[in-house]
């Protein structure tokens, strides 16, 4: 029983990180219909920036905030410079661009910081919280950071004019444009937010999996799975999906198939959801007029 609860808690911790990645993906998907394959590598790059700052003596939370800011403006910049000219390009061109970004970020991170594994500090102590070996402060901290971020995002989207404008641009671009919303900039803002959220995911996961340029490849796949399970067009669904995938992955890994096949489980989940319930658990089915 104790082992079972430990696995659930560990699953929720991983799930929080997958939820962040999934949320970043959804953020871009709802506004542009693109699936950002470079999401993981952008997060990895931001995490390296944080590592460099902390290594240079900047306090953890200052580096944390600065990294999110840099990632936000970096995402904004990428959308403005690379993706805006391709707004009406065919899908293949966009996929190629995302793959190009993925390669560039991965290669540059390796070039500057090398491919050796680095230890990333965690702001939370790893000690046991309640003295019964079930929940550590580190795990609680990861989930708490995710929940705080979710709360802030909800407030932003629900109670601010800018959030409303972003939702309008994503839902019906031409009507929003008629109402005076600068739709193109809203998309850029979405990219910035996605990049910032990705940076948080990277900084949360780095103490667990250690920092190296390839650390996000697997996590991104789980993020995809989470986003798809919850419904890739539904932010709250994606968060729920991330947690579901985290818990399932840990339970299936420790009880049924063993740790070596965890990634294949993610593959099965991705294909299974796409085939059986493409809209995800909480998504709406999209009917397309031809």
């Amino acid at each position, binding site marked *: 029983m104790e082992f079972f609860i430990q696995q659930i808690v560990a699953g929720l911790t991983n799930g929080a990180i997958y939820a962040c990645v999934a949320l970043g993906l959804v953020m871009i998907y709802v506004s542009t*219909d*693109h*699936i950002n*394959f470079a999401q993981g590598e952008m997060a990895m790059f931001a995490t390296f920036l944080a590592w460099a700052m902390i290594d240079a003596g900047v306090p953890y939370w200052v580096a944390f905030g600065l990294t999110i800011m840099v990632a936000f403006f970096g995402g904004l910049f990428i959308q403005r410079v*690379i993706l805006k*000219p*391709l707004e009406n*390009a*065919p*899908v*293949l*061109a*966009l*996929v*190629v*661009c995302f*793959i*190009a*970004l*993925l*390669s*560039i970020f*991965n*290669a*540059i991170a*390796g*070039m*500057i910081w090398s491919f050796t594994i680095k230890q990333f500090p965690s702001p939370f102590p790893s000690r046991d919280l309640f003295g019964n070996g079930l929940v550590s402060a580190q795990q609680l901290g990861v989930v708490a950071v995710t929940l705080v971020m979710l709360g802030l995002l909800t407030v932003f989207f629900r109670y601010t004019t800018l959030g409303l404008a972003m939702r309008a641009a994503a839902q019906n671009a031409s009507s929003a444009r008629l109402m005076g919303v600068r739709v193109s900039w809203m998309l850029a803002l979405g990219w910035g937010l996605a990049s910032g959220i990705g940076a948080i995911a990277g900084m949360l996961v780095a103490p667990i999996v250690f920092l190296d340029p390839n650390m996000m*490849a*697997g996590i991104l*796949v789980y993020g*995809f*799975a989470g986003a798809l399970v919850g419904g890739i067009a539904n932010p709250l669904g994606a968060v729920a999906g991330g947690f579901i995938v985290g818990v399932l992955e840990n339970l299936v890994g420790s009880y049924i198939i063993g740790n*070596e*096949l965890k*990634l*294949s489980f*993610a*593959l099965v989940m*991705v*294909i299974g959801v*796409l*085939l059986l319930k*493409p809209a995800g658990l909480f998504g709406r089915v999209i009917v397309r007029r*031809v």
Partner: protein
Amino acid sequence: MAAMARSWATKPHIGLWAIGFWLVLAALPLIGFVTESPSFEYYLFMGQSMLIYAIAVLGLNLLIGFNGQISLGHSAFFAVGAYAAAILMVHASVPYWLAIPLAGIVCFGAGFLFGFPALKLEGHYLALATFTLAIAVPQLLKHKSIAGWTGGVGGVLLDKPDPPAFLPLSVDQFLYYVCLIVAMALFWIVYNLLRGRSGRAMMAIRDHAMAAGTMGIDTALYKTMTFGVSAAITGMAGALSAITVAYVAPDSFTLQLSISFLVGLVVGGIASLPGCLIGGAFIVLVQNSSQSISDWMKDAFSLRYDVPAWAIYGTLLLLLMFFLPNGLAGGITAIRGLFSRATQKT
């Protein structure tokens, strides 16, 4: 993508050029009889790799360029082909010339099966599913339940086949010809496939699936078959790579391999058959000269760091998508078009 349909594949007067080109490729290893250069064997190995990558890109191009299904998971089929050939040759002592088509058949099956779920997926979603496949494959290959066959993390070692006694060729010259013959056969098959009814059906599905369906084309059948044929071609490239390298290991079939196929495809030209050869040669050239390119860039821009090959690939992909979306072959066609227009005017 409709513009890409105007490719070389459908132009009749290319035939003589193609025959001449393949003859030149066939004559290259004969330089070995006159040269004393110790690096010649290495150039031959590069030539083999270029042909192998060209075949792999051909498989991918059939799927992406001519059928409009995006795959980022062709490293998986390359891996299946390589492992199938290696296992057949080591455990069943199948000769190499039989192992290559058998690997192709195995990959056809794998691709056909993956084509079924792919039927329901379009564009980004198919890219996503195949992306996941590419990431999961190395882990699957290492799994202990099949380690008896695949050798687990260690992979499989095999022997390079000896050239037949009546041919006065070295092993590398012989393997080059094996790659060349397979490449010629596959390019010829694909060329004919595309000129016929099936090719037109595939391109119709790419341009407008629903319209193709109302014209009476069985879109589901053609899409799964194309997936299977594409996987079979890339799988045979994998089998050739297993034979020429004499070693297969799970960690050489990563997402990076899929990306390099994509680079070859985009550089050479989407929906262009000669482009596949350009792309294959390009991949190997950049991989082999990345150190010197990096040194040159360090000098030219006084950089502090080495420039990795993947950064070059990525930047090139972006630039091509912006300035030359039809690749080098498309660029050559455009220049030829300019010339012929200029001559017509005079």
